[in-house]
């Protein structure tokens, strides 16, 4: 069983600006998932071509550049479509965060696409565009400022806390959890 604490104060965080750790972890997860899907897709495509043509495929430097372009296009689709359709990618879903309009309303699909287009700009100059997540009061990165978006906590912490209390009521509190719960 996973032992963790879910203090009362977390419940009030819903709708507040998400911090750097949640956003970075969500992005790292997205990068792993999207790369894995892309690799699997390329491997499946190679297998199909080899089976049909009976020629083995070797990836040269030239094909590597083409693959990189396709990979970037796939990345743009992965992030752009997710943000436009639901305001969250798979990684953001796992971390319980979501892209909204800067005023907190649901972001329009075009903002999701614009955010995906502006996203690479944040990597320029050693990732200077991401500094805003740390130092800006609204935790907005460069691509957020361009698209007029913000990232907030969207997970139902109240339900999570009820689940936590319910589990605790059934199994009894783990050592040291009783004090942490009240905070």
């Amino acid at each position: 069983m996973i032992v963790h604490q879910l203090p009362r104060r977390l419940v009030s965080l819903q709708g507040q600006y998400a911090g750097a750790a949640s956003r970075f972890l969500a992005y790292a997860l997205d990068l792993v998932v999207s790369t894995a899907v892309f690799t699997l897709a390329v491997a499946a495509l190679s297998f199909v071509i080899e089976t049909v043509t009976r020629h083995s495929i070797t990836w040269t430097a030239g094909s590597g550049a083409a693959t990189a372009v396709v990979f970037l296009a796939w990345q743009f689709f992965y992030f752009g479509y997710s943000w436009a359709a639901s305001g969250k990618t798979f990684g953001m879903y796992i971390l319980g965060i979501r892209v909204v309009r800067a005023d907190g309303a649901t972001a329009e699909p075009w903002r999701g696409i614009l955010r995906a287009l502006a996203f690479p700009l944040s990597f320029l100059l050693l990732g200077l565009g991401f500094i805003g997540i740390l130092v800006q009061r609204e935790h907005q990165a460069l691509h957020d400022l361009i698209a007029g978006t913000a990232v907030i906590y969207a997970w139902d912490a109240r339900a999570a806390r009820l689940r936590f209390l319910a589990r605790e009521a059934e199994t009894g509190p783990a050592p040291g959890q009783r004090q942490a719960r009240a905070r």
Partner: protein
Amino acid sequence: MSPIDPLGPLRSAGRRVTDPVEALAQQAAEHAVSLVDVNALVERVDINALLSRVDINALLRQVDVNALLDRVDVNKVAERIDMDELVEHTDLGAIIARSSGGMASEALDAARSQAVGLDQFINRWVGRLLRRKHPGPAGPAEATRPAASRELTRGQAGS
């Protein structure tokens, strides 16, 4: 010429007698009430015997429950409920535990709460480094409204 009431003098004489007697009776009653210790009287009343003579069902039948509920602010009442206590000390906790999620939702809750803890740790340190006196807005106005929060979490399955 106005008719003469033969009983007029009699009534007038009666009033002269009854008015002071009525005032006297009023004073006597007030004095008697002031002498009575109501609390002591209530203590001597057997409430259980009294209640046993009351038909509560008949009384409740006369109560318009809808009218009563219309006057109650249910949201205010709900706000006063300590959900933590409710879940811990009733079967509600067991029901929630059995009906909602398993290891997956537990893992999600854990990952999210750990990430939030890390976020707050980083925010605290950045605030100290930048010597911020005020932490800034907690979140965008639209998203921090209670109704908006419910809207945002809708569809966040397993969350």
